[in-house]
């Protein structure tokens, strides 16, 4: 008897749903082995992770706090990935969005009506994120520069700019040397609805719905689909590839930029060290696990956020190394990538009997 892969004749709808679920279970199993190596009981660990992330309403609000930026950046990079544009710069787009929102909150608020501060901060941050994603897009379209490298490098540029600002000119003079800006005026605070969970959640849900409609129900979404799946045919059909890639990337960056705005206006209320904890990278996992579907990204983001919060929890309770949380994240992507094979292929068991031709 042996087992072979056989190409499916149609793409399996069932597999699209089952693969992420099974991959997640497989990764839990793999992580369990790792935990055993650290002489920790995996069941106990998972249980305390679950309690840490979803056990109480307060814990859940903390999970939401981390889920909101993951939702937004996940939707953002998912849009770019649909065009096979490998934007791995969501981190930089988020940070730059946060920086520009800070600029508005700190330096514009004395001069504009109070009600305008937040909307303006959000818009400015989105434009900033859009520009940050627009750079690799324009370079790719005009000079065919590899987008992966450019978008990755720009992450460091944005982080350095932020650091330069809160260590330098924007540093809080009364902050006792703490690396961060002054606290924003209250008019620039995005309201919270429970604990630290804020109304950015509504924006994330709204954007997911809008993106879904755009991708599935509009002329533009139809063109993006054509470009992503066969750019040559799309251009024969009269679709402008270059300008569409640039527009899509501006949108992608704007959504990630918005995540940065919320981080500074709703969570820290200032620009400070640790603005992003790698949300832009985790977003890549979110996007893939959600199969680039914006609505699915919402739920995957909550799951991944739960893992982050739960991971923090076990660090403290089980005395596991701090890097464990990141290891867990990475371990989730592998079965996912391997599992995507099953949407196009199926396993076929050939029995000895069949082989003998009986």
């Amino acid at each position, binding site marked *: 008897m042996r087992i*072979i892969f*056989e*190409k499916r*004749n*149609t*793409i399996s709808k069932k597999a699209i749903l089952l693969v992420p679920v099974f991959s997640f279970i497989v990764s839990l199993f793999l992580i369990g082995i790792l935990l055993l190596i650290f002489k920790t009981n995996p069941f106990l660990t998972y249980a305390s992770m679950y309690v840490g992330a979803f056990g109480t309403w307060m814990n859940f609000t903390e999970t939401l706090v981390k889920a909101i930026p993951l939702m937004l950046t996940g939707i953002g990079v998912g849009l770019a990935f649909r065009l096979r544009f490998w934007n791995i710069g969501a981190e930089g787009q988020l940070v730059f969005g946060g920086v520009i929102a800070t600029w508005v909150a700190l330096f514009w608020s004395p001069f504009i009506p109070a009600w305008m501060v937040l909307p303006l901060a959000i818009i400015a941050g989105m434009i900033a994120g859009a520009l940050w994603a627009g750079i690799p897009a324009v370079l790719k379209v005009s000079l065919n520069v590899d987008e992966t490298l450019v978008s990755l490098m720009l992450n460091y540029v944005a982080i350095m700019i932020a650091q330069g600002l809160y260590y330098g000119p924007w540093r809080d003079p009364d902050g006792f040397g703490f690396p961060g800006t002054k606290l924003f005026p209250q008019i620039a605070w995005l309201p919270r609805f429970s604990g630290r969970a804020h109304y950015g959640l509504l924006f994330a849900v709204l954007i997911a719905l809008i993106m879904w409609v755009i991708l599935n*129900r*509009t*002329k*533009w*979404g*139809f063109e993006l*689909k*054509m470009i992503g*799946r*066969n750019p*040559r*045919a*799309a*251009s*024969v*059909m*009269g*679709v*402008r590839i270059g300008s569409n890639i640039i527009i899509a990337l501006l949108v992608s960056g704007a959504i990630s930029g918005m995540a940065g705005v919320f981080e500074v206006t709703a969570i820290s209320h200032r620009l400070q060290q640790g603005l992003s904890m790698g949300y832009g990278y985790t977003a890549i996992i979110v996007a893939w696990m959600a199969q680039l579907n914006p609505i699915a990204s919402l739920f995957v983001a909550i799951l991944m956020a739960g893992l982050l919060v739960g991971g923090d929890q076990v660090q403290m309770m089980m005395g596991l190394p701090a890097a464990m949380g990141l290891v867990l994240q990475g371990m989730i992507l592998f079965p996912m990538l391997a599992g995507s094979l099953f949407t196009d292929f199926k396993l*076929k068991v*050939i029995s000895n009997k069949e*082989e003998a*031709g009986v």
Partner: protein
Amino acid sequence: MEEKQAVPILEMKNITKQFPGVLANENVDLELFHGEVLALLGENGAGKSTLMNILSGLVRPDSGDIILNGKKVDISSPKDAMHLGIGMVHQNFKLVSTMTVAENVILGLDNEKFILDMKEVRKKISGISDHYNLKVDPDSYIWQMSVGEQQRVEILKLIYRGAEILILDEPTAVLTPQESNELNGIVKKMTAEGKSAIFITHKMDEVMEFSDWVRVLQKGKLVSVTRTGDTNPKELANLMVGRDILFRVEKKKSNPGKVILELDKVFALNTKGVDALKKVTFSIRAGEILGIAGVAGNGQRELTEVITGLHKITSGKLVVEGKEMTNKAPLDLIRAGVSHIPSDRVAMGVVGDMSVASNLAMKEYRRAPLTKYGILHPKRIFNMAKGMIELFMIATPSPLTNVKFLSGGNIQKTILAREIGACRGLLIAAYPARGLDVGATESVRKDIIAERDNGKAVLLVSEDLDELISVSDKIAVMSEGKVMGIVDAETADIESLGLMMAGVSLEQSGEKEV
């Protein structure tokens, strides 16, 4: 003849394969004898490609046996097939376009050393090239090559890998008469050396010329097995479709109107930076079909692409319905009423991972009623698609099936339905019947002539001179990027067209210009 009754080197027994909604093969038997050529005949979707994909390890049969040299074998991958000496040249070539010929040839071979000796590889390739008269430069990139050249690379690849049984899926569909003759020579040489070949073709004269045996498939079933010598083209055609076929298309006399397309001294470069079009000048009137004859790679691709806005004109003028359209974007030309049936239907004509319905809407989606205020109406697209599928008889399990699961002929019908639906002045058709079976070819040609009768101007690029003569009103012959002459299709004869294709201009060949 007695020794031919000996044991076949290859036998396929009772092969059955079910695809969703289609029974592709039903208890099909096949025998191939040493040093012989077997022709496999059948309409689009008759199951020929599936049968050959089973043999080459791409598809697993639901039931049935494959017996090679008297031993039952299991072929579960193309690699298995290769090890057994079975190689296939697919309709859509499996070459990596950004790599060179030599790199493509050794790609996937596992007996190459860790450090590649490309010099040795090139030498071996040149050796095979010379031996079989397969002209290819080992250092050329695939994307720079014409379809005919790419096919030679595919054949060379198989010989390099030591294939004993060659499967050729509609090999002459992309070749000129001369190239077909060369291919015939190559196949003859290989069979003389003891190799065998299975040959899928639709051209009856080639069945007669190339093969020793013919097997005819109809709707997944084997309907006839004969020695080629014991049959004739008419009988085969009838067996294949189960009805009588018109070999000539009937058409009324053309009634040309105003000039729709004008090219004035158009020059264009190819991807290698060499002039691909040299001072091309002609015009097409409404209600007129201009055929473009020529050996592949003589500027036809660039010609269709400059007219559709996909390729840059370096000098000269392109005028569509009185408006200058030189170097306008593809969308502008679509808006000006130009439809395009591209030469490479899978790579340029459809998005394989989208549904038949979506593909049918890929021109009209921009306009009402399919789109209003930028919002698509999936229901309207679906209904429109259902109508088109019926009208053009596209065989698909559902309008929502992805196009990549359709057969080549049905993919072409999908493109044709879309382009004819969207056509408002000019139809550019590049090799529209390439690789299609007799029935589908007939319907494609009829559709094109119907468009002419509707008052459209048609540019028909083809390598099939019979097709050009029977479908077009005028024929322009291209050679090395130049138009050698334009002749009336009714009075044109194959010899003088052939001379022009070889680069002898019209004045020299002595035919009267129209």
